């Protein structure tokens, strides 16, 4: 192998992009998170046109382009739509592997919510299984007010 840098000292400048953010959740998401934190209740929001109940809630129904207008209590049970199991401990993971990510259609809702599947041997997770929200003991107004969903069977 020839020395491609013969006669020069290659100069590499290492850095990182450092931009702080603060994202406003907006009134719709804020109400959902406050009720989740304070009352351990899961809310969906219904489109007056097509009748779909969204959980996570949406201010506007994307298929009708209509503002949703009524809150409905949904869950805390739901059905697992799909899932994956992460086995490699990547830096972005906040839990120890194996970690199961699931898409949960909460009972009473028409869309699905992303969350962890826990309290289960990951090998026993199946699509279609019934799950239930487990609330965190120490809850803030984020999606982590739910610790995870646990299978009921």
């Amino acid at each position, binding site marked *: 192998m020839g020395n491609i840098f013969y006669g020069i000292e290659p100069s590499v400048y290492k850095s990182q*992009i450092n*931009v702080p953010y603060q994202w*406003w959740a907006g009134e*719709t998401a804020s109400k959902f998170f406050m009720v989740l934190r304070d009352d351990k209740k899961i809310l969906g929001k219904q489109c007056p046109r097509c009748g779909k109940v969204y959980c996570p809630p949406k201010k*506007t129904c*994307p298929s009708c382009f209509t503002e949703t207008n009524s809150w409905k209590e949904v869950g805390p049970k739901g059905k697992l739509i799909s899932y994956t199991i992460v086995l490699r401990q990547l830096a972005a993971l906040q839990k120890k592997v194996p970690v199961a990510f699931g898409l949960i259609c909460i009972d009473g809702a028409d869309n699905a919510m992303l969350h962890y599947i826990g309290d289960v041997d990951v090998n026993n997770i199946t699509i279609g299984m019934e799950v239930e929200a487990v609330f965190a003991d120490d809850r803030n107004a984020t999606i982590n007010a739910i610790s995870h969903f646990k299978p009921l069977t």
Partner: protein
Amino acid sequence: MAKRRVAIVGTGQTNHKSHRPDVNGQELIHEAVVRALQDAELSINDIDAILIGNMDHFEGINYVDCWSIDGSGGYHKPIMKLTTGGTTGSTLAIGGYHFVASGMFDKVLVIGWEKNSESDTTGAITTAFDPIWDRLVFAGAISGLAVEAQSYMAKYGATDRDGARVSVRDRKHACNNPYAQLRKEVTLEEVLASPMLADPIHLLDVCPRTDGACAVVIASEDCAETITSTPDWIWATANRHTYSYLGDVNWGELDSIADASKELFKKSGINEPRKQINVIEMYQPYSLAGIIWIEDMGIIPRGKGAEYIWSGATDMGGELPINPSGGVIACNPIGATGLIRCAEAAMQVMGKAEGRQVPDVNFAVSTGFGGCMWTDMILHGKNKPNL
């Protein structure tokens, strides 16, 4: 070359504010889209394609084209994102023009938005500069503008007091615009006494940070006149970039707007812009640019810009009103800002500018400006252009 004529047939914008904690980005976008569709009396089903854009790194969200669907109405539609820094909004308008002029789409919805309150503007803008040469020794937006102002002042003897006169004008105009963020008159003395941010730019000389969105509906000549009896015809667009590195810029003159103006006016047969153009909505992020850039545009001879501003010619009621909306100094949701200039110019041509309407507008110009001194321009007209 355009295959057919194109017009703006509806505009909408949010009531821009420093912070919008009541909505997330998608919900903010939705407000502008609903207003634009209402203005055009169209439904989202009438829209063939969507162009959307905002500033890279400002909200830290990639693939905004996809992420924004809940707000944009883009469900099952072709969507593309355009982002070109400060000019994002004007580039979106030019992109929408291309989409329709090419014959590919009949009705295009163009959306520019920003939630400037969600990040650090200087931190995000610094990522536009070269990491090896410029980023370590230079930061943010205001420094480049101050360098431009210093260079111009050294060449032509203008002062920060001349700049302050532009700020007084724009801030007064903003009082007529219910959508502008800052609607408060200021005096020359107040501008000059405000904190110096980067010599010679005082706090009241420069744009704020804003949360806001703007949407514009662009239609082909086949349907424009059935949508509205007063379409805003796009006569020409121009876009110029000049350099990669700050050290290569011809400081004190904005070459990109000079060259873009030449193209715009040549395409449209405008040989006396000062007489033929009735109103300008200029992407003017700080006050002295309002003097420098009208010289570069060929409206006023070099070195005469300040005198022209002091004469009142660019105030409402003057020979050539500039920024009836209050412009960028009064309101700056950056990814929307260039599109707001375009929408405001369109409203002037369509006779829909209400309390900020300039009478009898035949031609209006809107511009966009971006960091390393690049420019977008659009010429708007009341009558149909020649193809």
